[in-house]
């Protein structure tokens, strides 16, 4: 039975190298999460521990956005259009947490 109206589709073979790279990224994300677990139960609570967690989270985020979401390979103007507005988030974080720490000193 032939479908004459069906379009001719050429299926390309899997790009082995690309797929291998994706699994490598997945492996890195998995290892980083496992490391976070290790640190969570071996290090005493404090600002150093928080700093390490934040750093590892940013590395994981960079891999997800850069590789999985393909942003690293997009046009530079698109990359910066997405990344530059992030300074607002950084500012909001600094300002709000600073205010939060001052809250306890205020006598309402």
């Amino acid at each position, binding site marked *: 039975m032939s479908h004459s109206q069906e379009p001719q589709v*050429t299926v390309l073979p899997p790009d082995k190298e690309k797929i291998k790279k994706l699994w490598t990224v997945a492996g890195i994300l998995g290892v980083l999460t496992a490391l976070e677990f290790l640190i969570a139960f071996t290090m005493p*609570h404090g600002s150093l521990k928080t700093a390490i967690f934040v750093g590892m989270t940013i590395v994981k985020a960079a891999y997800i956005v850069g590789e999985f979401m393909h942003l690293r390979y997009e*046009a530079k103007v*698109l990359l910066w259009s*997405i990344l530059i507005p992030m300074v607002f*988030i950084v500012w909001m974080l600094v300002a709000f947490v600073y205010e939060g720490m001052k809250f*306890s000193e205020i006598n309402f």
Partner: protein
Amino acid sequence: MAHTSATTVSPGRSVWDGGVSPMGASYGKLMMWFFLLSDAFTFSALLITYGLVRSAHDAYTGTVEAFTFSPEYWPIPEKVFEAVPFLHGIELPLVFVGIMTFILIMSSVTMVLAVEAGHRMDKKAVEKWMLWTLLGGITFLACQAWEWTHFIVGTDTPTLVKDFVNGAWVTKEVTGATLSINQYGPSDFAGFFFFITGFHGFHVFSGVMFNFLIYYNTFTGVYERRGHYEMVEKVGLYWHFVDLVWVFVFTFFYLV
């Protein structure tokens, strides 16, 4: 890439004068990126407000071993989230959340493999990887349903909490959590748990719906007839973003 846009610009005109794609991406993909940027602001607002309210409360100062729930200080997350289904009474801090994180990362990987298959016009492979992605998303939602139930029902031993009832302060035994009172710590703690994981969970739910739509359209051959699988890419961006947000929620709500 399925779309190739003209890159030649006539003399005297810039790439921004129209007719070309200066950002090298289709309209739909660009709009998905900018929507995700705005969504990142929304999630940041929630997480940063969490940071503000948490730092405005007293922190627990004793040892981790001696920790008990009290509305006087912010709880240590690993002491709150330590239950795993079918293992009642066994303290396994953050194990279940770790499993959920793993599930979501894996479903992000299968999504990116679906996108890769789409570039090759491989209908069967797109279907296969979309089904795995759907399974990951649905499993994550099921895990979250369990976690919420456990959080709402609470542990075996209640906490004494002061509550304002009918114009007078009363001390009562509380198990579990509602939006106004909970056994784990200050009232805001449960509020943030419900809002942050709930808002993220709703994104996962929408993502599962979109993923199903993509699977359905692939199955019925819509994208094959269209000649490209760019919709898989666009919904893929959304799905990766949901994973990205979870990475931040995991760190700032459960680990720190």
